[in-house]
């Protein structure tokens, strides 16, 4: 801790922080435009100038570390004059005319800063050089005319997301934000996570969907979680008069700290599906509107006898999944036999947790990805890995097919299908040998005869992977659904745990083995035993709790000839058009319930939008059926039942 004085007040603040952060801790407001709490200091806007005793010139407080007995002034006449001049220069640089800007009226940090300084006019007139507007991206627009060159977007793109698509070219007034080497944004390597829009202080990066649909003061905020996958990122859903306006990352969320991906930010607003608004019953070959009572009774009658099967989406809340598993025979989830199921089976055998959360990725010096595609699934976890690569973190991918992350890997092993077991146990043997021989030469052909012909991996590549693992101090192993496709998936997972022991990723109680599983509640579904293969003969009545999920083609085909199919769903799909009874239920934004993320953290989803009339929640629809089936479910037991089966990862707050 160091002692400092700001504007005559004494503060004791942690060593090493900036003067700006110290002032914020002490409740002293220093205006700034380029600073952002989640980004590294940049010192680009010069708004945060302060006077420091003993220093000849004013200093940017965001880049100046505190030191003991520092005396700082933030509010002298000279500073205020300098700030006004800084603003004058920024306004004169480009086109900052407010009346025709989307963020004017409270959402623009530049305009707000001018108001704080009491600017009533621009002493220097604007630069009337037109800069380009890039509207090539499907989700947002980049308007160079509104840019103040603060580079928050560039820092967010690299430091938080690890994509490094955004950068600047040219110098001075010619400086311009570019994607890649100056290609249109829509054709660039942008992954559409939208973090740049969220950090932009002005109207330079504009979200298409929410433009002119409501300022900060006119919208309602709902802090909830994303149901896009099992990571459980915190999001802030913005609505106005029950209309969905925009989704933002929640900076305070413990898991993702503000970073989300396109699945969380943009795709939910792309939903074009036709909403089901009334219960439907098939009469004379066509689905006809019916009452809830009639529809529920029809389903109950068919499902009551033992000759039935049921399958649920893992996007349903834990409460709804519990109700579901208690009331149906032959119940499973749509992740039947998936990676979460393999992970659960491993826990059954080990009788103990063996996985961890993503926190170890932040401090890892090596990441080994096995059968995990963190570009097309669980993208935020991919961001966490990629953003650390510039710090020298080693990345190795082992998979049957390449993905975008394997492009950035130090070694990317593209193995033959079905050779996971040979590869993983082979690497483990080599690491053992390397440890034994103390870095002396290891002959791959001697340790692993015929390895290359079995896996398709050259001896040199496998040896370099073993070397990286052997020398890694804080290795993390991430495995994914690529493993589940193998008949011997459980054996592969055992080999992986063994490799973890050999290289130190698994060490006694401490494990740096991560499995991201599948959908929002895939861990909860597995904990409830809803991970068995779905089997139904055509005689059986089948109930599908689809919710707002998209049915897989395999399931649609499987149910084509079933004697009776009932579906509870939000949107019209091939499954609902084929069904005999359809119940209209909530979408993600109308859902209220619990979700257990891949790492065993139980979180609450809150309702952001009200349900349409005649639509019920997934839980209420299931309860209505149960009542008519004469099944009693003790709803209070869902937490206890969640930890009855040994979990693969420690389940925290249940």
């Amino acid at each position, binding site marked *: 801790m160091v002692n400092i004085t700001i504007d005559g007040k004494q503060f004791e603040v942690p060593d090493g922080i900036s003067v700006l952060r110290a002032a914020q801790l002490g409740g002293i407001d220093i205006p700034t435009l380029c600073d952002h709490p989640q980004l590294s200091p940049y010192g680009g806007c010069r708004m945060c100038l302060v006077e420091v005793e003993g220093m000849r010139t004013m200093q940017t407080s965001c880049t100046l570390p505190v030191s003991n007995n520092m005396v700082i002034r933030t509010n002298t006449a000279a500073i205020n004059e300098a700030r006004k001049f800084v603003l004058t220069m920024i306004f004169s640089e480009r086109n900052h*005319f407010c009346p*025709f800007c989307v963020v004017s009226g409270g959402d623009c940090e530049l*305009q707000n800063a001018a108001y704080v300084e*009491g600017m*009533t006019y621009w002493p220097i007139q604007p630069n009337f050089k*037109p800069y380009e507007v890039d509207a090539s991206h499907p989700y947002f627009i980049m308007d160079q005319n509104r840019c103040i060159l603060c580079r928050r977007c560039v820092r967010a793109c690299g430091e938080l997301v690890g994509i490094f698509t955004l950068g600047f070219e040219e110098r001075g007034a010619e400086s311009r934000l570019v994607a890649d080497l100056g290609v249109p944004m829509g054709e660039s390597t942008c992954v559409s996570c939208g973090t740049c829009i969220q950090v932009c202080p002005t109207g330079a990066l504009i979200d298409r969907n929410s433009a002119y649909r409501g300022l900060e003061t006119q919208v309602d905020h709902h802090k909830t979680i994303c149901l896009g996958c099992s990571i459980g990122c915190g999001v802030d859903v913005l609505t106005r008069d029950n209309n969905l306006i925009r989704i933002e990352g929640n900076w305070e969320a413990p898991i993702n700290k503000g970073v989300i991906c396109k699945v969380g930010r943009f795709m939910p607003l792309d939903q074009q599906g036709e909403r089901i608004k009334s219960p439907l019953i098939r009469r004379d070959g066509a689905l006809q509107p019916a009452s809830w009572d009639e529809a529920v009774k029809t389903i109950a009658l068919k499902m009551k006898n033992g000759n039935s099967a049921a399958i649920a989406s893992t996007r349903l809340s834990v409460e709804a999944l519990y109700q579901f598993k208690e009331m149906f025979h032959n119940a499973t989830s749509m992740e039947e036999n998936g990676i979460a199921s393999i992970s659960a089976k491993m826990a059954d055998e080990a009788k103990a947790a063996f996985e961890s959360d993503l926190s170890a990725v932040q401090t890892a010096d090596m990441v080994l990805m096995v059968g995990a595609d963190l570009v097309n699934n669980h993208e935020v976890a991919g961001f966490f890995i990629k953003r650390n690569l510039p710090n020298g973190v080693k990345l190795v991918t082992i998979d049957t097919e390449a993905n975008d992350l394997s492009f950035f890997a130090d070694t990317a092993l593209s193995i033959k299908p079905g050779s996971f077991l040979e590869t993983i146990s082979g690497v483990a043997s080599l690491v053992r040998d390397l440890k034994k021989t103390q870095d002396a030469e290891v002959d791959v052909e001697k340790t692993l005869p015929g390895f290359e012909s079995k896996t398709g991996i050259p001896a040199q590549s496998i040896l370099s992977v073993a070397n990286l693992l052997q020398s890694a101090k804080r290795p993390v192993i991430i495995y994914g659904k690529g493993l589940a496709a193998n008949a011997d998936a459980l054996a592969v997972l055992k080999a992986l745990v063994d490799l973890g022991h050999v290289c130190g990723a698994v060490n006694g109680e401490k494990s740096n083995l991560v499995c991201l599983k599948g959908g929002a509640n895939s861990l909860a579904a597995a904990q409830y035993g809803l991970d068995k293969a779905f089997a139904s003969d055509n005689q059986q009545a089948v109930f599908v709790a689809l919710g707002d999920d998209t049915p897989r083609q395999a399931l649609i085909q499987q149910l084509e000839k079933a004697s009776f199919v009932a579906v509870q769903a939000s949107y019209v799909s091939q499954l609902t058009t084929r069904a005999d009874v359809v119940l209209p239920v909530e979408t993600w934004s109308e859902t209220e319930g619990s979700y257990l993320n891949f790492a065993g953290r139980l979180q609450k989803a809150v309702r952001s939008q009200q349900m349409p009339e005649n639509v019920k929640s997934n839980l209420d629809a299931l309860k209505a059926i149960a009542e008519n089936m004469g099944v009693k479910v003790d709803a209070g037991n869902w937490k206890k039942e969640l930890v009855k089966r040994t979990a693969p990862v420690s389940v925290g707050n249940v």
Partner: protein
Amino acid sequence: MAKPKIASDWLAGCSGCHMSLLDMDERIIKIAELADLRATPITDLKEPDESGVDVGILEGGINNSYNVEVAERMRERSKIVVALGDCAVFGGVPAMRNFFDLDEVMRRGYVETESTDSEGKVPDDPELAKMTRVRAVHEVVRVDVSVPGCPPDADVIFYVLSELAQGRIPVLKDNLLHWH
């Protein structure tokens, strides 16, 4: 003491700021009690008194030689010049044409407009004012008080006028200061 005289005029604007002035409703009677409202575009008297006024208000930016004359006349005859609204203060919406070549703008306005028939023609009568780049009023004449807003709220205009009518210079801050 005689009531201070207030005059106004409009330049390259949309007259919306004067409409916002009227939007202060019955409070305009209070202003009339405090000040002598002289020439404005919305009263019978059109030119500020040659003998001078205390406050001269200008709405709109300056986009041609005629606007320059009006602004200079207002400056000469007023003790205090007020720039009212975003166009007068910054250039505003008309200044969007500064991003284009003037000939291009005229062609688009008089020849290429969708409602123009095949005879479209850019006006070229020598008596017409000469078009220029759009400028804020303070780029042409000295301005004493800037009142931004598109338009400034009636509340803001009432505050500004009542302060000026009582011999004080209005200070715009907090809720009274907005540019949109």
